[in-house]
């Protein structure tokens, strides 16, 4: 028997999509039955009270969590999001309802053994509810009390060899697309990059030292499966320098209808027979492709590596062999001065080994932003305030046409004094000798 009546939430148990309400109810029933005989360290009815407070919010159309919350573990300045219910007498099971962020493996591959261990810890010391995963990538353990934080941290580090994720004004948990693990488009090992940089910058991740938050994301190609260009201050996107590899026989197989375009992604509707002219050649954004006499040709110098032709004919067209990545910077959500996607900073960088070339760019940017960034100013906003030129300077990147979509249209152009013959020190009297008042 449920602890609270939840008529509105009950409606969300209907319909075909997996219902979060049914799942929470199942966990509530499991905790009540307690088949393993666990000595629950937080209230057994925590999930019931969560449903109760949520139903109340559905009624009121208002949240019932208090403002903020500062909790954590010794040694770290982040990793736990404190939260308290604003109706603790009515819902004592969620009077404390802190969220613990755990660092996830890059690409989110798991063994059942690992997940079982994690669930065992969380069943005992938490609500039994999770978010797999938070938008930044972390495993999210949803709802526990303050005294359990150090206990959970001890068990996770000592028994599972896992660490907390990031929160606060620091490096947040990096994330990557699944990269070379199972994608033939991957131009570098995104998971290795994510893991390597996560380990390299543990201090920056656990102890807030920045003006504001800072995120890394690693996409293996411009398709952007982890949305690096929209959701990370420092976006690393794989690409290649040489030509797209063309398998003419496979192209013929697409044209003949043996291979399905886009690997069958549009098979839910009849779009007619594959038309290479209409679906590939004429869709190329730089018109760099030709289809003549049953042969496909690509003008490498005009190709912008948008991925469209490769996406459409993955068995016939392949990424080049001279691989690396582009670095783009500054993506952020609207607050404060408007949303931004990342802007291209380094067009091509090596992305292998210990990723030293990428780290050098990271550290140059941090040196500058940590000094110049205002309180709660994202890198994208610092770039706007102090200019893209300044960022290119600190990164040591020679400005090139690649750095802009189009040149400026206003003439408010700053020059450096040393670039201008004679400099800025001028005597008005000298001028007056030639120009009377």
């Amino acid at each position, binding site marked *: 028997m449920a602890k609270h009546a939840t008529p509105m939430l009950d409606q969300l148990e209907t319909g075909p999509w997996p219902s979060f309400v049914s799942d929470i109810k199942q966990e509530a029933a499991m905790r009540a039955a307690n088949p393993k005989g666990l000595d629950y360290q937080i209230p057994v009815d925590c999930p019931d009270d969560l449903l109760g407070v949520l139903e109340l919010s559905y009624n009121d159309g208002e949240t019932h969590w208090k403002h903020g919350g*500062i909790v954590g573990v010794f040694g770290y300045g982040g990793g736990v999001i*404190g939260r308290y219910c604003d109706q603790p007498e009515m819902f004592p099971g969620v009077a404390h309802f802190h969220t613990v962020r755990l660092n996830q493996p890059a690409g989110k591959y798991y063994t059942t053994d690992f997940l079982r261990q994690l669930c065992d810890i969380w069943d005992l010391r938490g609500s039994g509810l999770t978010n797999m995963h938070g938008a930044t990538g972390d495993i999210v353990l949803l709802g526990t009390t303050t005294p359990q934080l150090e206990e959970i941290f001890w068990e996770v580090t000592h028994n599972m060899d896992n660490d907390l994720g990031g929160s*606060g004004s620091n490096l947040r948990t990096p994330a990557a697309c699944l990269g070379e693990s199972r994608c033939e488009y991957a131009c570098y090992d995104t998971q290795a990059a994510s893991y390597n940089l996560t380990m390299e910058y543990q201090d920056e991740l656990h102890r807030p*030292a920045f*003006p504001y938050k800072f995120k890394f994301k690693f996409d293996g190609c411009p398709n952007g499966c982890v949305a690096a260009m929209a959701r990370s201050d420092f976006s690393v996107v794989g690409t290649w320098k040489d030509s797209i590899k063309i398998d003419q026989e496979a192209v013929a197989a697409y044209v003949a209808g043996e291979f399905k375009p886009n690997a069958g992604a549009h098979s839910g509707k009849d779009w007619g027979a594959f038309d290479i002219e209409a679906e590939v050649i004429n869709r190329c954004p730089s018109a760099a492709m030709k289809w003549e006499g049953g042969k496909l040709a690509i003008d490498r110098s005009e190709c912008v590596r948008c991925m469209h032709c490769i996406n459409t004919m993955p068995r016939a067209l392949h990424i080049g062999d001279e691989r690396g990545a582009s670095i783009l910077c500054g993506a952020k959500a609207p607050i404060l001065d408007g949303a931004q996607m990342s802007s291209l900073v380094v067009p091509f960088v090596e992305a292998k080994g210990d990723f030293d070339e990428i780290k050098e760019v990271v550290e140059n940017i941090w040196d500058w932003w940590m000094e110049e960034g205002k309180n709660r100013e994202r890198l994208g906003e610092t770039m706007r305030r102090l200019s893209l030129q300044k960022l290119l300077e600190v990164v040591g990147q020679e400005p090139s046409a690649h750095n802009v979509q189009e040149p400026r249209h206003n003439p408010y152009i700053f020059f450096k004094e040393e670039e201008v013959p004679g400099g800025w020190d001028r005597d008005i009297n000298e001028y007056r000798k030639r120009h009377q008042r």
Partner: protein
Amino acid sequence: MAEITYEGKTFEVDEDGFLLKFEEWCPEWVDYVKESEGISEISEDHQKILDFLQDYYRKNGIAPMVRILSKNTGFKLKQVYELFPSGPGKGACKMAGLPKPTGCV
């Protein structure tokens, strides 16, 4: 909100153990909080950080950025954590009586 009595003084605090009123701060507060923040003895270095936080807050009405704290006190972040295991926000600011840090933490 909870009320705490220690050494004859009363303090109004929130769930996270932050003082609700900066004016209620007194040396006994530091003594009361230190254990829960993993500190056994308040050294001169601890005091230097607490003093700076309070001066800065009185002058500017906000807590300083971490970088400014480091620059002015001469303590690198690593040393700040050695002194205050839960960090400059939860540890030092709480002991100095500053308001609870807010935002996306």
